[in-house]
């Protein structure tokens, strides 16, 4: 049976083996906790012994045998690939890639980027409507294109929102939460515009869902800079109870089939 000997950092908080693992990789701990563990390792021989055990064990993993590729691997892979590539169409830029490029170009002006999107969607819809009596098929094509552009933008928006929610729920890092506040503030405005665009294009379900996200984004954006991580507990409970993260993923998957494997 493991002994429950307690090693603590200067703050008095117990240092678990799991934290020592994160400390070993210098990943997943905030800077203050790393300093605390540094100090505790210096001051506590038994904690040092635990950490040495961990280091030694992980070093043994480095010595485990590896499957080495043979010298002809790259040639063999290319030979099979070449045949498949010849049979496949050349790589194309998807709607998502085009919208990402547009967004990157307009990144310094987020409101302008959103406005540009809406303009494109609205213009395509207007053009489609004007041409409908004469060129119905062509007009439908333009309407479908505007819907795809909007979908691609909303999918990107939901991906950013998903990352924000994941950080809100899982991270205790003050730095990450500071970044999250800025991200949330940037997402609030675009969220409103996408909800409006979705409503105008007749997608009431998407519009409702985006409106449901707004209070959460506002809550994250308006967290005081010096608030402790515990101040997010209420929001975290709300997110767990409403399963909002899953809903964001499901909506993303509905909009963008490439994301379907993630839910």
């Amino acid at each position: 049976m493991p002994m429950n000997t307690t090693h603590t950092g200067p703050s008095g908080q117990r240092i678990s083996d799991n934290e020592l693992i994160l400390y070993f990789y210098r990943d997943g701990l905030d800077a203050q906790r790393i300093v605390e563990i540094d100090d505790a390792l210096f001051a506590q021989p038994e904690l040092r012994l635990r950490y040495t055990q961990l280091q030694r064990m992980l070093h043994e993993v480095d010595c485990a045998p590896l499957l080495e590729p043979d010298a002809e691997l790259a040639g063999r892979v290319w030979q099979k690939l070449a045949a498949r590539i010849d049979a496949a169409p050349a790589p194309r830029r998807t709607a998502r890639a085009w919208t990402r490029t547009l967004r990157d170009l307009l990144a310094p002006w987020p409101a302008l980027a959103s406005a540009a999107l809406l303009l494109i969607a609205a213009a395509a819809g207007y053009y489609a409507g004007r041409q409908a009596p004469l060129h119905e098929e062509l007009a439908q094509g333009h309407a479908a294109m505007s819907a795809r552009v909007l979908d691609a933008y909303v999918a990107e928006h939901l991906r950013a929102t998903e990352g924000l929610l994941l950080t809100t729920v899982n991270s205790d890092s003050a730095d990450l939460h500071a970044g999250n506040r800025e991200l949330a503030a940037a997402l609030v405005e675009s969220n409103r515009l996408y909800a409006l665009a979705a409503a105008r294009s007749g997608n009431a379900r998407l519009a409702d869902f985006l409106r449901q996200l707004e209070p959460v984004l506002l809550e994250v954006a308006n967290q005081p800079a010096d608030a402790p991580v515990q101040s997010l507990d209420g929001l975290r409970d709300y997110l767990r109870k409403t399963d909002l993260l899953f809903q964001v993923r499901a909506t993303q998957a509905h909009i963008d089939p490439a994301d379907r494997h993630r839910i």
Partner: protein
Amino acid sequence: MTMANEEERWAEERHVAAARRGDRDAFRHLVEAHARPLFTLCARITRDAALAEDAVQEALFNAYRHLGDFDGRAAFKTWLHRIAVNAALEQLRRRSKQEVVGADLEDDEDEDFLLSRATPAPSPGQHARGAEITRRVDAELARMSTLERTAFLLRHAEGQSLNDIAQALSLNISACKQAIFRAVRKLRGALQPLR
């Protein structure tokens, strides 16, 4: 970054840009540069040379088809490795006919396990058991769940961040950490009898 590394990076960017325009030779350069490290990555996950080679094949073909989506925000290598992780997992899924990722997301025990089994530095006799230790590590890696092994090896051997691993495996950070904790705990347990 050294001058040679800088030149390699620049050459790679040119090859990626040309391949995106459909230049087959440029893509061949990328295949030649990345096939071996991708094999190592896939072999760590699948533990089978044939499956690893199939995964490399699929990963590179998927990369070619989706080059238009590569936006250059991550390094090309990072993007490619993410595709390869999924290709390797897919090979395992096909073989086992069951979902492997997400199959073992139960909460980890938070009980410590290092100190109770801690011993002083190994004696010369224990050094002689090095081969046995290596064999046990290898056997334990084979016994781990795919999720645990993949998360652990991406962190430990590939040096990927928890964030990147979580993205590659479609997990949240907490689940990703738990998988790594379980993997380390299992390794510790496997080595204990030799200590």
